[in-house]
């Protein structure tokens, strides 16, 4: 491992070469953990891959295939997708489905009759218009999955948010330890310094008296 490379950092007594940071960050976004594997941080890469994709898959398991979809229409501004997209490539089918729906939506905001979603409707947005408090497709998903739809949405949102931390870690190395932890570390360092200095003083006094 190159020790004096400008991209090398030292954390927890270990030297970490971040290599091409931008590429690592992009890979970390694309597949959770891939950026770390590119940097040779395999254990962390595996941890991120398993944790984030487990949350993602579990979200689909409890909420169905529509917990992630891209739509920004009156009555259906799916802001959750902005956070879910943090999980990377796994959220991209929703963009494809959303784009197809956009092409099949007329000027009045109504889905055309000849619209057929891709991949059996996986991550497809609901038929339009979506009107709050009316029996539209979103209401049907809620009715089918109950609290599961809500929980699935939150699982996938959290997976996306966690991956943002992972992207930062791939780009710049581990985040700072919280202030409380730093205070404790500083206190320990100060105690050690004090002990060293008092030992030094005792030695010097001893030598003066002799």
């Amino acid at each position, binding site marked *: 491992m190159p020790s004096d490379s400008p991209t090398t950092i030292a954390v927890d007594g270990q030297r970490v070469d971040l290599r091409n940071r931008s590429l690592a960050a992009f890979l970390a976004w694309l597949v959770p953990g891939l950026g770390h594997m590119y940097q040779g*941080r395999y254990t962390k890469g595996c941890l*991120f891959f398993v*944790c984030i994709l*487990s*949350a993602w898959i579990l979200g689909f398991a409890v909420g169905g295939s529509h917990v992630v979809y891209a739509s920004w229409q009156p009555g259906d501004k799916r802001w959750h997708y902005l956070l879910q997209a943090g999980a990377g490539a796994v959220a991209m089918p929703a963009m494809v489905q959303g784009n197809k729906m956009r092409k099949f939506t007329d000027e009045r905001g109504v889905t055309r009759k000849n619209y057929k979603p891709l991949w059996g409707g996986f991550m497809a947005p609901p038929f339009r218009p979506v009107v709050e408090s009316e029996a539209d497709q979103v209401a049907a998903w809620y009715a089918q999955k109950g609290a599961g739809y809500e929980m699935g949405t939150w*699982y996938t949102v959290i997976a996306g948010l966690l991956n943002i931390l992972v992207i930062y870690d791939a780009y710049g190395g*581990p985040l700072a*330890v919280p202030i409380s932890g730093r205070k404790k570390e500083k206190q320990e360092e100060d105690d050690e310094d004090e002990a060293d200095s008092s030992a030094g003083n005792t030695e010097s006094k001893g030598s003066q008296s002799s």
Partner: protein
Amino acid sequence: MKQILLREIRSRKAPSQANLREANKTMVSISPTYLLYYIPLIIAISVVFGATRHEDTSLILRHSWHTARWITGFMAIIFVVLCVLDWWA
């Protein structure tokens, strides 16, 4: 039609205090199986939190454990406060 609907709504009796209290109790007492949703979530969050702050595996695990305990304690306090409020109100 609108007038008929309005008259019907106005003619309905307001729910009694006892019924409201019963409804509130139902809202607070959720199924314990819902709590199972929390387990994978807390594992994923605390491990990712730990791993984005350390490189050493033992430190990652220690930090994860600390985070999991902290979040669980915080949630437990909120739960107790809600239970007390529900019991008191």
